[in-house]
């Protein structure tokens, strides 16, 4: 084999993958096919690459269990529904609270009653937030939450 032929083979080598995958332009494909047709080395190389292609293509990988997949999709749907549900709930509560606060500010009552009512509701809100925070932390740090009995 001459140096020119070797240089041609080196230039063609990477294109053999493109030829195998049908990803070359028509002109390049014809050039590569002409070279391979007259070159034993590149023909052998193409055969080698085809063996890799067929070997990996014919692998059989464990299939995803149908029950696992069904559970996966149900989880996804449940989480999406749950997310939308929480969004609507929080939005609704905020809207009602906002309107109540607006009405409360405009209400014609004595300041003592007004601020007394505000303190009661603020206290209840703070207590609720405190409980929710504790529950959230407990949920995040519970090492046994995934244990099924």
């Amino acid at each position: 084999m001459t140096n020119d032929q070797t240089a041609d083979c080196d230039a063609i080598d990477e294109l053999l993958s493109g030829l195998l995958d049908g990803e070359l332009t028509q002109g390049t494909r014809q050039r590569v096919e002409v070279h391979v047709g007259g070159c034993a080395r590149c023909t052998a190389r193409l055969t080698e690459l085809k063996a890799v292609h067929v070997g990996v293509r014919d692998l059989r990988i464990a299939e995803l269990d149908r029950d696992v997949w069904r559970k996966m999709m149900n989880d996804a749907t449940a989480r999406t529904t749950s997310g939308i549900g929480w969004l609507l709930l929080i939005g609704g509560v905020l809207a009602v609270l906002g309107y109540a606060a607006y009405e409360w500010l405009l209400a014609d009552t004595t300041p003592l009653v007004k601020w007394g009512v505000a303190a009661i509701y603020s206290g209840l809100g703070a207590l609720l937030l405190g409980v929710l925070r504790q529950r959230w932390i407990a949920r995040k740090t519970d090492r046994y939450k995934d244990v099924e009995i």
Partner: protein
Amino acid sequence: MRLAVEQAAPDGYALAAHLLGNPDDAADALQDAVLRVFGSDSYRPSEGAFRPWFLAIVRNRCLDLLRQRRRHPRLELDETELASDDANPEAAFERDEEASLVAAELAALPAAQREILILREYLDLSYAEIARVLSIPPGTVMSRLHRARSALAARFRERGIR
């Protein structure tokens, strides 16, 4: 969307199984990807076909898991899953044995080479789709794929496979 996810899921699972090395981790990665699809990462048709977009999410999730677990990925194909239902048990045995050898050699490649081979040879993605999944310029797919094929071909030669 649900139908598109169901159609792309087996490919996502196959990719994850090869990248992560075992079926349980692959199922975890796929589940995370599915949750993302229905949650934060909503698909827009302007981003191209759904399948490569979904595979890119699965791949990213696999890479996250690999980083988190900091362990070398290995392919653990269950031998029973390779069992064939062929009518000729002897031929089936030979074919399964060869498939096991191919799987072992593939698993020995670096993850970057393994994933591009799975995307092209096993999942039959085009170069443009592979570029999308791997987030690389389309022009570099052929050279990267060729290096991976050459590496696996060299291992085949050494082991006398095919």
